[in-house]
Each structure stands twice: as C-alpha cells, then as structure tokens.
C-alpha cells in the first residue's frame, strides 16, 4: 500500500523472508546457548543477540521502506564502494553486483514479482535435483549418481535433447572416472 510519497508502506518479498530466516537462526542459537556454562555461552550468546538485533533492523528497513531514511547507517557503504572511479559506465566486473536476469530485462517492479516467483521455483527444482543426487550417492556408486544427475538435469531442466544429455553424461562420467579412479585413486 503506497503512502503519500508514493512509497509502499509494507513490502513483503523474498528479501524480507531471507531476513526472517537468518534472524530466526540467530535467535535460535542465542536461546540454545543459554544451556551452556557461562564461559562457553558468552560469545555465541553475544553474537546471537547482536546478530538478531542487526537483522531485525535490516528486516524493518526491507519491510518498511519509509524507515530507511530514519536508519541511514544501514545503507552506509563499505570503504571500497567507490573503487570503480576509473571504470567506464556500463562495465561491471563479475561478482561486483548481483545482477540478475530480472534486473537486466528492465521489468517494472510489479512485473518482477511473478518473474521472481518463477525464478525461485526453478531454484527449488534445481535444489531438489541436487538432493536427489545426494540420495542416489548414498545408495549407489558415485558414477551412477553423477551420470543420472547430469543426464536428468540436462534433459529436464536445461531442455536439451536426449542425445545431447546422454552424451554430456557419458563425457562427465569418463572425466570423473579418469580424475578420481585413475589419477587420484580415491576410494569412493
């Protein structure tokens, strides 16, 4: 809901959810640390309290954009924020900024939300594939798990042809066999 200045009063998005998860983690560890002896709990308890308070302020800024102007120190940049004064506009070193497809696509904030949901859903699917790989790794030989993961992800998620997916899976398996079994002689 926008206020008089046109800013949304409350913003609920993925950033807010992330803030809440990390804040809960800090709080959980702070509470659990109360069971330890005074010396053992001193540092984790202090870190847990400080971390959760800092994260709460970050959460406030993310969920209530109007608070940002009152808590300016939260937006204070690191020392190297202005390092790129010799850098021409438009050239951003990789890793310097988290630029996503959504940012590059020039979508409006209203259009970004559904696109973000799609992106997070894709991420969830990839994570599920990786969990599947771990399960396979637990019950089968690692070469089977690696081959199955590469072929399935390439076919299903990357939407490549069966021919290409199987070829990639075989190449990766041969590479892993040479690396782990022949060169490193690892007992896996």
């Amino acid at each position, binding site marked *: 809901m926008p206020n008089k200045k046109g800013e949304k009063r409350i913003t609920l998005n993925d950033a807010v959810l992330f803030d809440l998860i990390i804040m809960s983690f800090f709080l959980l560890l702070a509470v659990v640390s109360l069971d330890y*002896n005074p010396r*053992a709990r001193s540092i984790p308890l202090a*870190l847990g309290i400080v971390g959760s308070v800092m994260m709460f302020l970050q959460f406030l800024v993310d969920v209530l954009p109007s608070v940002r102007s009152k808590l300016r120190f939260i937006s204070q940049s690191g020392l190297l924020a202005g390092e790129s004064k010799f850098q021409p506009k438009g050239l951003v070193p990789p890793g310097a900024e988290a630029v996503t497809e959504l940012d590059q696509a020039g979508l409006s904030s209203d259009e970004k939300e559904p696109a973000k949901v799609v992106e997070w859903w894709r991420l969830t699917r990839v994570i599920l594939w990786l969990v599947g790989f771990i399960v396979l790794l637990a019950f089968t030989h*690692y070469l089977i798990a690696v081959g199955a993961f590469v072929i399935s992800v390439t076919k299903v998620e990357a939407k490549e042809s069966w021919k290409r997916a199987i070829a990639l899976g075989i190449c990766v398996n041969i590479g892993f066999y040479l690396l782990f079994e022949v060169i490193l002689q690892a007992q896996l």
Partner: protein
Amino acid sequence: MLFGILPGLGGPQVLALLLPITYGMDVNLAIVLLVGAMSSIAFGGSIPAILINTPGTGQSAATCFDGFPLAQQGKAGMAIGAAATASCLGAIFGALVLTMILPIGRWVVLAFSYPEYFMLALMGLSVIAVVSRGSLWKGLIAACLGLILSTMGYDPVTGSVRFTFGSDYLWDGIRLMPAFIGLFAVGESLDLFLKRGKIAQIDYGGKIGGVTEGIMAVFRHFGLFLRCSIVGVLVGIIPGVGGAVSNFLAYGHAVQVSKDPERFGTGDIRGVIAPEAGNDAKDGGALVPTLIFGIPGSLEMAVFLGALILLGLEPGPRLMLDNPEVVLVLIYTLVAGNILVALIGLFGAGFLVKITYIPTHLLAPVIFMLALMGAYLSHGMLADVIVALIFGVLAFAMKRFDFSRIAVVIAIVLGGLAQKTFHQTLMLWGFKGFFIRPISLGLFIITVAMVLIPYGRTMLLRRKTSNAA
C-alpha cells in the same frame, strides 16, 4: 586458468574445488597445486577481457578498457602478448618483494602472545568493513553469521560442545572445505544455471596474432610496468583491498602520468600493461599479511588461509619458524606458475576462450558435480555434501540480497582463533591483558581506525555536500 577465463568463477572457487584433491597429499605438493592454480587466475581472467570484453574475474576488469579495443582493431595477439608478459614479470616482482619481507616474521613471532593473536584476528575481522561492497551493515551481519557458525562444535578452552543438535558430525564444527565449496562453487553454479545463455556475449572472430609485438611493448614501457608493479604490491599488502583495486589503481596511474591520456580507452597497449602488472604483482604482496600475520588480505587469501589450516599448517608468525620450506615452495610455485600460465596463455588463448561459449545450463551441472563430489572426496561423508549444498543455497541467497560472502568466510576462518585467544587472554591477564601490551594496543588502534574510516568518509562527504549547498 580455466576458472579465470570463466566469468563469475575465480580464485576462491578453484581453491575450494581443489581442496579435496589435496587430502592425503604431501603438504608441499598440495601447496604447489593450490598456489599454481591461484597464480593462474589473474591472467586467465584477462583473456576473455581482451577477446570478448568480459573480464573473467573482477581483477581483470580494467584490462577490458584497452584490451578489447585492441582486439577489435585486430591486435588481440599483441594485447595477449603484453598481458602475459606484464602478468608474468609482475608476479615475479611481487614474489621478490615477498621474499625480502618474509624474514620479518621471525622477529614478530617472539613478540606475539595471546592478546596479540586475538587482536590480529580482530584486525582480520575488521577487514570486513573494508571489503564489504554495498551495505556495510549487511557485511557486519554476515560476519556475525560466520562468527556464530565458527562457535559450533567442541571448544577445547571451555570444554563444551555447542550447537551440535545431536549430530556427531558437528562435533568438529563446520568443516571449512564443504563450507567453502558451497559458498563459492555451488552458489555460483546455481546462479549460472538460473541465468541461462552463454557467458560470452561477443564473437571475437578467432583471430589471434602479433604476440611478439605485445611482449616487446612491455620492455618499451618498462618504467610504467615497474611503477604499476609497485602499486600492485602495496595494494596487495594492505589487508582487504585486493586485485580489483590494484587493477584499477594501476590503470588510473598509467592514465594520470601519461602525456596523452586521451589515447587510453581506444586501444593503447599501456592500458593493458599497467593493470596486468598491478594485479599479478599484488599476489606476492597479498601473501605478506596472510603468511606473516594470518590475516587474509582478500577473498582468495581467506580461502587459501583455510586451505593452509586444513593442510595442518599454522599461518601467522610461527609459519616462518616451523615450516620455512613450505614458504619457499610457495614462493617458487608463485613464480613458476605465472611463467607457465603465461606460456599456456600465449599459445592456447584462442582455444581456451571457447569455454565461455558453452551454454551455462550445460556448464553448471558439470560444476555442480565437481563441487559436490569434491566435498564428498575428502572424508567420504554424505554430511559434507549436505553441508556444501546448504552453504551453496545460502551463498545464492546472500548474493541475491547483497550480503557479503567474504565476510562469512573471513569470520569462519578467524572466528576459532579469536575465541580461543580471547578466553586464554582473559584467563591469564584478565580484560586489561588486551591493552597493556604495546603491540596488542597498537593493533587495536589500527583495527578501530579501519572500522571507523568508512563512517568518517561519509561524514566528510556529507559536510562537503552541505557546505556546497
């Protein structure tokens, strides 16, 4: 070198992936492997910067400014020749400086006790204030997260087992290797996979020639090369500044001292020599705080520091006393690695850059497997793979929401040392122990200054702005 060529991947990722391979390896061989890979990254990143205007790593970004215009003019070979020579000679210069400075470590060791080690750890942690890109607040939150994670497991000083939640695996705390693999390799691969497309956006045409002319250009501008190497070493020595800054500072220096600065950005070979000399010379400088004080000067060095600890070494003042041969191996490898990678780059750049044309959705699954199998390899434990995956997801989210991953790494690496020496100092001297010893007090003052600088800078800027208004 391959990881240097691939944008988004770099030193931390290759070190994280190589860590499991070093398990059970002779320490010297492991050092050769890790330093060899690390020293190859900077020049590897310059190849796509020159050929396709896409810096492989942040520290090669300034090389684009003149390297790519040279490639557009059909002088890609000249640019690569100059970059390879400047990188190689710059790294040798850095290694020479490192060799001359390291013996100081022997003197430092005698003056250091628990409070000094604690202050060193604190100083290393304060580097987070310097390296945090974007919000410093988020950098500090990430540091808190890393520190609290470092408290997990058995604590020998207090005799307690913390935050294991009934898991035997967590008795040893968070293992550095799967955590690093997750934070860098898995996190980046998730990002690559979701972005789709190809890393390279421009076709370089496949023509590479004029290499000799480029090599000779470095010797024609040897004064510039030498000055930029010094800039690189100095930037490297300052903890937390790193390659991207040395690259830009060296380029900026070349522009500032030039009689014809307007030529920069249009394909001037000096614009390739300067940043390349700077970013490779910084490696020798960056190893100074890492080896002598155990303070990681950059993200790469933070992972390397963790690798040294995993290999059973103790980076810091004692390293020169206990393992002088390791330090020598490290320096020789740094020099040899750079010479070798320069030669490979000169002969194989055209082929290597083709990797950037592989679609990311085909490349990412392979990196996933390399990363997770790497985590599995060291102890053959599935828990390591799960930890790598959890940290990978955390890294992806942190990158997306602009939280610093380097802060987490630095905090995990230094958290244990900080805690241990904190309790030991309190037991021996009480709280005053941190401030009654001159070196400890000096380190504390420097640390406070490092934290306050970003805030001071903002205050000055605000005052200037209000005065101007």
